[in-house]
């Protein structure tokens, strides 16, 4: 129970990677606050976690709105008086050729993925972590933020922004005893991914073949990296971007067909 009685905020935790992160924190004894854009989905997730014996509560949060971030933080502070861990997980992804992406979609993806991460971090740091002189922040970036993936200009630019933001805030707030790190998941089996597959925009086997490990990630594998970085076990780690990608990013993929040994699978 390495997070026993710690107050942990996870944004976008109604489903997918965020939900799994919240679940893992619950099983380690944390009081988890779910930030949810859609109240009902957040309530459902919190209820599910409580049924499993976790301590979880959902609060409505629109990370792209600084006002909402401050209100969320104030509510948590009123009730629990501290925030030990913040996981900025809320994200939105849309596929568009860059020459056609509507301004609205570009702005939405930058707003949620990058601005949202900053607004929420600012609210939690200024109202909780800096005054209490402690805290650990984990940002969910992406291997997309480390390179060129066609049709993902807004998402990848935002995630790249998150990676550097992580470095800036880590160096700026280290002296407040606040650590800031990022996790860059590879392609992970999530609702986001399933939606793309259902729409015919992605095929899991293609992603699996491109990955040296030969399969996509499970949400649990991303969550365990987040918990490690959030915990005292990583007390000398700050400002890093931990790739959890099965070897994706450094793989040169000579023939563009993925890893040879994966072809049979």
């Amino acid at each position, binding site marked *: 129970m390495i997070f026993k009685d710690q107050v942990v905020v996870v944004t976008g935790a109604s489903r997918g990677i965020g939900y799994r992160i919240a679940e893992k924190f619950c099983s380690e004894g944390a009081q988890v606050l779910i930030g949810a854009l859609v109240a009902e989905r957040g309530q459902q997730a919190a209820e599910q976690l409580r049924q499993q014996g976790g301590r979880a509560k959902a609060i409505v949060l629109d990370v792209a709105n600084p006002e909402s971030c401050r209100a969320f933080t104030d509510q948590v502070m009123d009730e629990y008086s501290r925030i030990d861990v913040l996981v900025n997980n809320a994200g939105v992804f849309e596929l568009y050729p860059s020459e056609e992406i509507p301004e609205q979609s570009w702005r939405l993806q930058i707003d949620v993925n990058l601005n949202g991460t900053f607004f929420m971090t600012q609210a939690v740091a200024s109202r909780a972590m800096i005054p209490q002189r402690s805290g650990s922040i984990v940002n969910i970036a992406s291997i997309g933020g480390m390179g060129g993936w066609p049709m993902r200009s807004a998402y990848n630019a935002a995630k790249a922004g998150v990676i550097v933001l992580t*470095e800036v805030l880590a*160096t700026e707030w280290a002296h407040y005893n606040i650590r800031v790190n990022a996790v860059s998941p590879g392609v992970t089996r999530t609702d986001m991914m399933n939606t793309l597959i259902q729409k015919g925009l992605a095929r899991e086997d293609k992603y699996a073949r491109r990955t040296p490990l030969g399969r996509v990630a499970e949400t*649990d594998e991303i969550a365990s990296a987040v918990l490690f970085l959030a915990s005292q076990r990583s007390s000398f780690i700050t*400002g890093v971007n931990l790739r959890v990608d*099965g070897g994706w990013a450094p793989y040169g993929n000579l023939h563009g067909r993925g890893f040879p040994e994966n072809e049979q699978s």
Partner: protein
Amino acid sequence: MGADSPKMSKAEDTIGMSHQEHCNCRDQSFKDQVVVVTGSARGLGFEIARRFGRDQARVVLTDNLEETGELAADTLRQQGISAEFKYLDVRDPAQSASLVGQLVDEYGQIDVWVNNAGVVYKGPAETLPLEQWDDSIAVMLSGAFYCCQAVGRRMLSQGHGVIINVASSDGIQYIEGQVAYSIPKAGLIMLTQALGIEWAQRGVRVAGIAPGGVAIEMLQKGMDEGAAELESYLRRAPMHRLGDFSEIAEAVHWLASRDASYVIAETLRVDGGWCAYQLF
């Protein structure tokens, strides 16, 4: 997830046996596993070996410092840890190959291998004695590769294993006078990528750490060059403190665990934000 955790959800089942096993016995995740750490007669290597030993692993310390190594293994045994020392000069590929054979005969398996052996030579590039350059490459790059190849063959045939390479922040950012140290460490980071990718499919996971601002090197430097050196270092370090060996060992331990099953070909910085900071 601890053994007392309420449940595992459905999605968990898809991850497969090994992960499930881990979830049920996290605290003993290295129980009875054979963990080999090179360059572990003292310092960081010793602390890494001890960390696995505390988790009930059977640890093998190797070093070319025989007396210190035997004493180190003694110390661990006194702490209730299963430990033995084996002489190994990683410069010699015949020695790493024969040690792997010996350990397999003795233990039947090798689960984790940590390449930690290193040597430090400092001096300007234009006057660096070539023997020092050669020796740096021989120990920290070629030596690591020889070990990887020898133990990698074994791990590939047994179908599982984890190799953790101890690189350095000096392999990522350059500090003057460190040419002999930085270049093999940078090579080691790429070696981690290469082997991580080559062996991912066959159950052998290769990852690394890049420590920076850790006690030994800087304290030594501080003593060599006067305390002012240490002070200016601490001013520039974002956390304004040195890292403890135990903090580095903890990262190695995590990376070697099943918790890090999707972390492959990655080198994790454990440097208190040193590399991230790019101002004054």
